[in-house]
């Protein structure tokens, strides 16, 4: 008995070493590719490095203090937050409405699903360009046809550029989140609706008391996904507005890119990166926690 156990634990050890060898390559690649850069960003953010010299003068938290007084950086945050909040609301509501409409027993559900989903297969850089041309060349044609006088040149002025970008971004992503809501809706047991009907609940009441609570996990993933995705906006801007007119559509990542790569301020740019990482982590944690709490309560 004792011998057997010893032998067995010997085999376990051998197997554990083999399992260990399996995990190591991924571990190393991940560490070099993502964890070390995170630590590097923290380190560089405490220096005034320009990316060219070998020495990286240590300046403590000076970069972070400067960030707080940097009006361009703050403006980038304001734009990014506006973009994120509007996106989170519009995209969630529209995706959910489309999913409900698709789930209401209409014909050719799959065809609609595909149509709404296709835009998210296109690279954001290309989406930006498509909408640049839509606003400047295509949509104004409708004014002539309909005899209206709507201003479609949304990327042309700093007061409308946000709406233009929201249209482009929502066109691209609504179908993606719709699919998650649709999967959520289809997993709700029909008996729940029948029970609510028997209890005399109307359509709206059924939506409020059956659909929404049962969709809680999907809502969590969509809200967190849209928020964190919008805070990272960059590709979309490159080919559509390049952050303009003026600085009105410069996001945090675009501003960091301009500061660090084009402006050769690696230290200062790293401080911007770190601030974004921290905000993203905080937002994700706060949202997951509060939405999860709601899920549990319901």
């Amino acid at each position: 008995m004792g011998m057997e156990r010893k032998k067995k634990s010997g085999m376990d050890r051998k197997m554990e070493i083999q399992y260990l060898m399996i995990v190591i390559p991924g571990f190393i690649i991940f560490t070099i590719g993502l964890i070390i850069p995170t630590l590097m960003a923290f380190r560089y953010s405490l220096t005034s490095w320009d990316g060219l010299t070998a020495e990286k003068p240590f300046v403590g938290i000076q970069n972070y203090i400067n960030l707080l007084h940097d009006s361009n950086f703050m403006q980038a945050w304001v734009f990014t937050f506006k973009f994120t909040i509007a996106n989170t609301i519009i995209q969630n509501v529209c995706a959910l409405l489309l999913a409900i409409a698709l789930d209401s027993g209409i014909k050719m559900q799959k065809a609609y699903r595909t149509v709404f989903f296709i835009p998210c297969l296109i690279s954001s850089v290309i989406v930006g360009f498509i909408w640049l041309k839509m606003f400047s060349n295509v949509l104004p044609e409708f004014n002539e046809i309909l005899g209206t006088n709507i201003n479609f040149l949304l990327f042309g002025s700093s007061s409308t550029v946000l709406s233009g970008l929201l249209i482009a971004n929502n066109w691209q992503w609504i179908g993606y989140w719709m699919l998650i809501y649709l999967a959520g809706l289809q997993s709700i047991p029909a008996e729940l609706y029948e029970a609510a009907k028997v209890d005399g609940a109307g359509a709206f009441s059924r939506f409020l008391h059956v659909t929404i609570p049962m969709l809680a996990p999907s809502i969590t993933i969509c809200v967190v996904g849209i928020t964190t995705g919008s805070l990272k906006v960059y590709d979309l801007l490159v080919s559509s507005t390049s952050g303009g007119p003026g600085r009105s559509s410069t996001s945090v990542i675009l501003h960091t890119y301009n500061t660090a790569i084009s402006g050769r301020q690696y230290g200062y740019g790293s401080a911007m990166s770190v601030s974004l990482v921290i905000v993203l982590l905080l937002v994700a944690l706060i949202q997951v926690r509060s939405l999860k709490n709601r899920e549990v309560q319901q």
Partner: protein
Amino acid sequence: MIKRKNKSEDATGQRYTKGTFAIQAVMTVIGIAFLLPILIVFNYSFKTKRELYLTSALTLPSSLQMENYRKAFDKLNLSTTFFNTLLYTALSVAILAILCSITAWAIARCKTKFFKFCYIYFIIGILIPYQALFLPIYIIGYNFHLTNTRYGIIFMYVATGISFGVFLMTSFMSTVPLELEEAARIDGCSVFRTYFSVVLPLLRPAMATLIIMQSFQIWNDYLLASLYVSKKDLKTLTVVIQSLFSSQTSDYTTAMAAIVISVLPIAILFLSLQKYFIKGMTVGAVKG
């Protein structure tokens, strides 16, 4: 038709009423609005430069001429960039599929503290966006001589995709029955052989999901590709198309043809493997 109607009745308990018809009509309008930009891209891609300036954006081209596609091939060095994009995507995704599944398997089977730590370590990567870390990622690539090499960018795609892959694969691992593995082990198979001959074949659906999710992201990536590759012969589709956007604002029919060429492969992949794609998204949805 009748069969489908019955099915939807069963699922939602609703009949095809006037209300449903109204929804159908509204959805058709929204669907056309969604399709419009895509149709416009197709339309432009067949127009001549003359038609671009003289006719409305909404009129059809006089003939289906392929001139823009030919120009796109020349200007974008398209045979090379298309091959590059395909190579980076295919290799990164193949490596990710093997690496993530075998790592997830080891993590799921070995329940010691170290492996639990590994799981959390990998999952952290889902929360840290590489887009925010482009600067150190660029510096590390530069120092390790990874920039302007094919293996460098593939390495980065693997490194940034591994978190999601391990997460996805670990959540599938409970569906793999232990008995088969134990049988293989009793037969004297090493851990590696057990994986490749017993576990891997069972993971095919999960692999398909991972492959589709990652290939569409890597194919469309702009930030990493623009940071890591500046040599003409190594560039990817999104990068060269973006340079065409910024340099030739007057002649964008070529750009439109290039867009069609770049979107087509991923659209075909999606349409043929839709089922797995949706499965992957909904599994991802559980993570919240």
